[in-house]
């Protein structure tokens, strides 16, 4: 396998007594989309900043394009922060032109017609397309996208993902942070962080690890819910079914003794699995 585009080797970062990232090793390879999942405060942003060379690790090593992070290396990165990184007072074209000047590249491909309005006055979905155009126009080898599709509709999300996948097909490595499980399922590999550490890594199937949920169908889900909660169980309502981790099945049967209820098993969703992994660390 070729050398990773970005890599952390056993990296730890402390802020005073607080450990934000603890012994984390991740690597972004050419042509792959790597998803970084974690609750707020799990250490994702700190890890990202170290991988970008913006923050030195307390221990361990970060490699960017096979070297220590440097200013020259940053030109090969396209970074889209959560706030999109656009100038609200400039038009889309002015934003793109400015970024080209910063990166020292000439215009690569003609852009679709862009509105001649200040970016701050455009709908969120259009702003996101401009931000994507901006991070892609200097043909970065490493794309780093922090929650790239928050708040856009599924069609817009599908279009933005087409751009992400096209960049990966062209050989770029993509590192994405997301809270959004539909988006996580689009990634080739996932790294799940909780409480400053990696708690799971691999493909979707590896993360799901065959975990199951038990589904409870009953005519009166509200009554069943309060019976379960009285026994300390925390069912989730999905449609008109209640869902619990499969390990809670026996406790659920006991809590609902005498109630008209049908139990069945279903695979856990990524979000359910994530919550279990994260809660296991808390």
């Amino acid at each position, binding site marked *: 396998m070729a050398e990773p585009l970005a890599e952390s080797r056993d990296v730890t970062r402390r802020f005073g007594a607080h450990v934000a990232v603890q012994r984390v090793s991740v690597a972004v390879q050419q042509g792959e989309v790597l998803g970084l999942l974690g609750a707020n405060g799990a250490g994702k942003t700190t890890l990202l900043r170290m991988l970008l060379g913006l923050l030195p690790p307390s221990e361990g090593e970060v490699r960017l394009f096979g070297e220590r992070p440097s200013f020259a290396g940053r030109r090969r990165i396209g970074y889209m922060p959560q706030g999109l990184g656009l100038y609200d007072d400039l038009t889309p074209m002015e934003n793109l032109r400015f970024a080209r000047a910063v990166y020292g590249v000439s215009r690569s491909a003609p852009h679709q017609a862009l509105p001649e309005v200040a970016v701050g006055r455009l709908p969120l*979905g259009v702003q996101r397309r401009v931000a994507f155009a901006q991070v892609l126009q200097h043909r970065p080898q490493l794309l780093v996208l922090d929650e790239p599709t928050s708040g856009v509709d599924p069609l817009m999300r599908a279009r933005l993902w087409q751009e992400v996948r096209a960049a990966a097909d062209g050989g770029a490595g993509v590192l994405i942070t997301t809270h959004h499980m539909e988006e996580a399922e689009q990634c*080739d590999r996932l790294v799940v962080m909780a409480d400053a550490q990696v708690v799971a890594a691999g493909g979707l199937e590896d993360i799901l690890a065959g975990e199951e949920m038990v589904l409870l169908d009953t005519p009166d889900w509200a009554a069943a819910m309060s019976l379960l909660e009285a026994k300390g169980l925390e069912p989730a309502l999905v449609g008109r079914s209640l869902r619990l981790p499969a390990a809670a099945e026996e406790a659920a049967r006991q809590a609902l003794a005498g109630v008209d209820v049908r139990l069945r098993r279903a695979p856990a969703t990524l979000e359910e699995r994530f919550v279990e992994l994260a809660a296991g660390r808390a």
Partner: protein
Amino acid sequence: MSWGLVGVTVRFGRTPALQSVDLELPAGEVRVVVGGDGAGKTTLLKAAAGALHPESGEVSRPAATRVGYLPASSGVYPDLSVAENLQFAAAAYGVAGEALRARRGMLLARAGLDRVERRLGSELSGGMRQKLGVIRAMLHRPDLLVLDEPTTGVDPMSRRDLWWLIAHAAAEGTAVLIATTYLDEAERASKLLLLDHGRALAAGTAEEVVQAMPGRLWTGDAKPADDAAGRAWRRGRRWRLWSPDGDAAPPQGWQAAAPDLQDAVTALLLGGELRPVEGGAA
């Protein structure tokens, strides 16, 4: 008891924000409206909550004091503490006494906010702010609870707490209406409404919306030909290709795929985009 909208149209100037939209909101059920930025979700929620009056159509809702409404801005006062925010809401809705104290304590504890009661609204994380906003809106056990994107940008742990609050309100007999851009949340509701440019593109259970997808869906590994690229999207490394006319056989190299909600919604939104072009050709 059931609330809702029948044939509701809202215009801002000449721009139609909602076009003859129907939505039933039965007691004890969670309904989700899904769509992108500018689809009309906020306008629909405002109409349902009584915050704006439609140009035409019928809105049935409980008295204003029996509605709980969380605007997209979260409705939390930044300069008041968590406790003061709730006190303010309780006074506004005229609820007080031991029952309020018990309910308030239970909701705060379940949402993990009981330890931050003195913290100012401006000092809360995004997830905490949203949870406080939902508790504020449901503190008085409203008959109708209307929540505008309570989970956008919120991490999965807070999302779990928010959905517990939502299910709890429904279990108490409240009719709940939620706007979201996330399809996994649309699947958690008993029924969903897909909105685009102020029009209802589909409505019903998740299964019904999947069945409402016109045409056929194909899946393949190679990029589709140029003339079809506008009807294609990515799912991980694979492609999906939508034939709106429902050709019986797939193009060469493609196989039939069973659509899920994400595919169906993407196709329905694409269909909505293609429609004006068809009309223009006539």
